[in-house]
């Protein structure tokens, strides 16, 4: 049986600590899963987890059609300032946009690690498409010559390029013709939405991550080749959709934030809910997110990555200082902001330690957080303080759930994570509390079920609204297909219209998202998420 007819999907999540893998069959059932330590070179961890799940499914390994990988590798490279490439930045828009030079407000060490130099050249457009200035090709060539040999990649960011992208494409061709056909070029209109500084920062980060991206994609290719699998490989991105590996090599920055997105979608999928509030209860925090029609709800606030302001689409996450290791102040009966973290198995009362934690509070009120362990004898005052702390933690979770639910009690609460016992079986603001099986590998499941998607923005007059939505939809669908979606089933899943306040002419920004199951050859679509959606 060739992979094109296979029906199994493997999801791999390369986290900072563990590399998890799951195998899903066509019905979306988890038929194998594993947790392996993440290795320094990435490859060993991927190899180990892949080998483990393939061992579990035996001969069915030949039915594996796709492998989807989610990773925090790019995020970690930026946060730790490691393995980053040197970037030459060309901003197009002078004389506009000269008041806030490139790399302004970057942390010094990150700027030193990444910047090979920058320039602001004539060009760019106004909101209505009128040119700010002719493109200054001479200045670009001069700039590239002045820093020749010092950069690994080029980033290009033009004023209003998300609406008028031709100039960035022209600069890409110019750079390739002048420097060499192989030089990687990041174009801002491929990376982000309106918001020049944030989009430019993201474009620069993307250009700096090409090396890191190659490491991970090669690790995946190596592991897949070693196992002699004939499967298509994908990367998960920050909005819960997938991209092809070639696309991921060009846009590595889009993998940032895929961890929470996969966790949210995976948890929702395991529970069978297309719309739900998700809570991932860890040792230190509880992270809440919302899944709406299969996609994580996105935050509207600007996000910083490694101290740099970007306008990435990121899941809307609410983090509470409520986790299994959260330290309880016995004097006041309040949960503190401190956690014993991974030291819980030495320090918590339940494990014979001397620090009262929320895990102990759960045990004191009748739960069994750890099978086979019960609390040592405690006095009444301690018991009362633990009870109070747990009640406060429950209150915090309830108001967070209420906040995420926007006040309508229509969504179930799906609980995943090792500290899930802290969540009561009934929570105000949620219709029910669901604790799905395989919750510990929700991230890898999320990767395995991701769709291919794309997004596009357009500014327009009110009168041209429908034309603009049509144009943005076409662009978004094009991007989704480029990311691997089946052209026959890809569809527009979201249209957001934002009126522009304070414009003299009524102006509108339309933002369109398209997504669809991955394209496959010679077989019916078997994306489990999609199937489930049709059932509901």
């Amino acid at each position, binding site marked *: 049986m060739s992979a094109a007819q296979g029906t199994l999907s493997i999801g791999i999540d390369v986290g900072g600590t563990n590399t998890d893998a799951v195998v899903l069959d066509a019905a979306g059932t988890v038929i194998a899963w594993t947790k392996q330590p993440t290795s320094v070179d990435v490859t060993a961890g991927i190899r180990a987890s892949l080998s483990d799940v393939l061992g579990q499914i035996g001969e069915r390994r030949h039915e594996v059609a796709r492998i989807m990988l989610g990773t925090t590798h790019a995020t970690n490279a930026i946060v730790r300032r490691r393995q980053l490439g040197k970037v030459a930045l060309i901003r197009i828009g002078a004389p506009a946009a000269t008041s806030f030079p490139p790399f*302004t407000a970057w942390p010094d060490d990150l700027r030193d690690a990444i910047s090979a130099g920058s320039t602001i050249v004539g060009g760019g457009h106004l909101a209505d498409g009128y040119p700010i200035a002719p493109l200054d090709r001479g200045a670009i060539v001069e700039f590239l010559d002045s820093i020749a040999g010092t950069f690994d990649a080029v980033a290009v960011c033009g004023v209003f390029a998300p609406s008028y992208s031709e100039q960035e494409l022209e600069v890409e061709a110019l750079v390739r013709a002048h420097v060499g056909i192989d030089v990687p070029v990041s174009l801002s209109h491929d990376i982000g939405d309106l918001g020049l500084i944030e989009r430019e920062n993201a474009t620069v980060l993307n250009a700096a991550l090409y090396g890191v991206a190659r490491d991970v994609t090669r690790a995946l290719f190596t592991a897949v080749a070693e196992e002699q699998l004939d499967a298509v490989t994908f990367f998960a991105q920050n909005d819960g959709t997938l991209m092809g590996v070639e696309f991921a090599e060009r846009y590595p920055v889009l993998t940032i934030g895929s961890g929470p997105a996969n966790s949210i979608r995976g948890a929702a999928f395991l529970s069978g809910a297309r719309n739900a509030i998700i809570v991932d209860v860890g040792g230190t925090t509880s992270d809440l997110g919302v899944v709406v029609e299969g996609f994580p709800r996105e935050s509207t606030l600007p996000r910083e990555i490694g101290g740099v302001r970007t306008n990435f689409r990121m899941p809307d996450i609410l983090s509470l200082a409520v986790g299994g290791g959260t330290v309880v102040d016995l004097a006041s009966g309040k949960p503190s902001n401190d956690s014993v973290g991974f030291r819980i198995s030495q320090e918590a009362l339940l494990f014979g330690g001397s620090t009262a934690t929320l895990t102990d509070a759960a045990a004191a009120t009748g739960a069994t957080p750890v099978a086979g362990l019960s609390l040592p004898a405690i006095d009444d005052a301690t018991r009362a303080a633990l009870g109070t702390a747990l009640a406060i933690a429950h209150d915090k979770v309830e108001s967070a759930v209420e906040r995420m639910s926007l006040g309508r009690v229509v969504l179930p609460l799906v609980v995943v994570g090792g500290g899930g016992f802290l969540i009561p079986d009934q929570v105000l603001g949620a219709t029910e509390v669901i604790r799905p099986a395989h919750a510990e590998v929700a991230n890898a499941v999320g990767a395995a079920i991701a769709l291919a998607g794309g997004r596009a923005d357009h500014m327009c007059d009110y009168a041209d609204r429908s034309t603009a939505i049509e144009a943005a939809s076409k662009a978004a669908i094009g991007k989704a297909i480029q990311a691997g979606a089946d052209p026959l089933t890809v569809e527009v899943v979201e249209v957001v219209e934002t009126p522009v306040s304070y414009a003299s002419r009524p102006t509108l920004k339309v933002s369109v998202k398209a997504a669809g199951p991955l394209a496959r050859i010679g077989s019916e679509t078997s994306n489990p998420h999609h199937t489930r959606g049709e059932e509901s």
Partner: protein
Amino acid sequence: MGASYTRYMPSEPLHAAPPPARGRLITRDDIAALAAGAAIFGTGGGGSVDMTKVSVEIDLDLHGPVSLITVQDLTADDAVIVLSAIGAPSVGIEVISSANQMETILAEVARVIGRPVTAIMAAEIGGSNGVAPVGWAAQLGVAVLDADGMGRAFPEATMISMNVAGLPSEFAVMCDVIGNVSTLRPVNIAWLERHARALTAASGGSSLGAHYLLTAETAPGAVIEGTVTRAIEVGARLLASTDPLVDLADVLDARVLISGKVTDVERLTEGGFTRGSVTVEGTGSDRGRLNRVEVQNENLIVLEDGEVVVSVPDLVTIIDTETGEAISTEMLRFGQRVSVLAWPCDPLWRTPRGLELAGPPAFGYNIPYVPFVSNPELAAEVQR
């Protein structure tokens, strides 16, 4: 020239040597407090202070502290010009100003008035436009006047103290990101607003502008004094506070109308304004009460049980109960834990002309203005 401005980020050095210091100095360390305070006086509008704060801090790093002078410090040699940014925030985040845009404006203003500009004043202290002038002053090597034209944020150019005082709006200078300079000689401020909007549209939706020449002679009584110092004071108290709600109410001499959570946000953008209402349901000792805040870019009116509790031009700000941070209209979300603060406006707005320009009817509300009193018991004792 209203309240919903873009964020402009100038930073190029224009003068080699800093001007001689006058008055007190605004240093880099004051900017976080100024931004936090300006957000409080933004009464929900005035534009986000986040990026402006960063760019002004960079300006002060590059050019050094800025002189903050009072109306009393003004001499016969002084010429003060009022500055603001015009345009939609959604355009401003993309079309960032050019490095010498404000310098171009000042040079043209000097040509028009026949003398150099020595100081600049914010059109409004509320929000981004209360913070940005400090950065412009650092670049241009001029002082900042410790005053503004609103004492808060308002959505329209006509709602400005110089208009209340009857100062004629004789000229304005605008410059766009391309470098196009327009000098206007409008018959009054209402026509200036109309023409400024049209020019801004032709410039792609954003521009910077200067209007109203103020002097030692004309400034007294035509500006709201001390508002920069006041914003820094309020912001500093907030940033240092462990009990923000109590401390803010104290430093603003404000009344906490309600503490609770946002249970409804209704928003509609029309005619260049964000209109809507926000419902806050009381919690704790306010349980069982509801306040509705009517919004038009800024927070205008608070209603409880159908009764008006406070209305424009008095100030209403919604803050995060935990952090004390002001929450602007576009950032309000269901479920936020908030408190609503109200306090009296500058007396200038309570004059007949002030109320004509910025009282409830100016915003389309057919209700009489009742002056807000933060502490009714105290007010009864101390007759002002």
